[in-house]
């Protein structure tokens, strides 16, 4: 067990060093290294974008936006936290801001108010079993708060700052999300 533990540690240490080297190369403007970094993390970024937006097209656009801005912001990464943690924070902020702009466009275009009855790409099926399907059906603000708090582990204070809502509203939206999930998952 000890040996296995050592092997895992050595692998982790190696992976960390490789990532540090990659980030350092990117900071020096190496685009090939940036492509490697993209390939390593695109799944993680897209997955978070998709959960936040609940829309494939928006999630793809937001993912591009994240990696375009990341190229400019990577010099700000000082290595104090894990890169993936920092990247999650950057992704959340950029995606929320992207959704805000996009929502403005849709509302201007179709004069649609945010309402529970209108969820982009909401699943019409009521027997969807996986949690992601339920999450995609949540109203936008409840969904964002749920994803950031329950899945990504952000505090309500952080979410309030990211989304420009009061801390109390973030807690209320989380409660609302859980109530809806509880209902849909048949626990009421």
């Amino acid at each position, binding site marked *: 067990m000890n040996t296995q533990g050592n092997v895992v540690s050595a692998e982790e240490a190696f992976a960390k060093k490789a990532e540090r080297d990659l980030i350092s190369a990117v900071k020096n403007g190496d685009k090939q290294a940036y492509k490697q970094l993209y390939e390593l993390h695109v799944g993680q970024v*897209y997955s978070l974008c998709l959960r936040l937006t609940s829309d494939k097209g928006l999630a*793809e656009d937001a993912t*591009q936006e994240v990696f375009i801005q990341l190229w400019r912001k990577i010099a700000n990464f000082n290595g104090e936290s894990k890169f993936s943690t920092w990247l999650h924070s950057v992704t959340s902020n950029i995606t929320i801001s992207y959704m805000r702009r996009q929502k403005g466009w*849709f509302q201007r*275009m179709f004069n649609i108010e945010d309402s529970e009855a*209108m969820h982009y790409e909401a699943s019409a099926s009521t027997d969807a079993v996986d949690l992601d399907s339920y999450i995609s059906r949540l109203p936008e603000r409840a969904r964002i708060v749920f994803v950031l708090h329950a*899945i990504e582990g952000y505090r309500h204070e952080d979410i309030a700052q990211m989304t420009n809502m009061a801390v109390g509203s973030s807690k209320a939206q989380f409660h609302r999300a*859980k109530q809806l999930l509880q209902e849909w998952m048949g*626990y009421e």
Partner: protein
Amino acid sequence: MSNQDFERQLASQIAQLDKQKQPERDLWQGIELSLAKDQAEPQPRKQAGNTVILRQTSTWVAMAATFAFVGVLSWFTLNQPAPQSSPDMMDVAMTLSQQHEAQKQALLVRFEDQPALTQNWQQQLAELDEAAKAIKAALAQDPNNIALLKMLQHVHQQQIDLIETVHAPKWQQI
């Protein structure tokens, strides 16, 4: 079933969530183009929305801007000296156009039997085709112009957005 059961079930499902999902289309190409443009313009852009994506812009406003821009380009093209060739960039433009055409045709087939929200969408589509042609002509004159390549991508995206928007029921838009 109790609240505790629900909390347990929820926590278990959250732990099992897939944290790595791959996008269906290749996003790197667009990112790379935008980075190339950044290098060509050393001043960092403050508005993140002004990237290769450009989908947040109102389609109608963007279309008006496109036609105005294409008008200027056409004038420019007619008044330019002899062309210089740069096969690489033209290849990129050609590949983009081929990919776009395949995507457009697939969408048109998909929505073939679905009623459209507006009557004149095909005319708008044809106008965007004309815009794309004018941009490609300008690109042939100035093959190293990344801005033109981005404009071409933008027009392609507008066509896709137009087809999707006029065929998607309103309730699906938000």
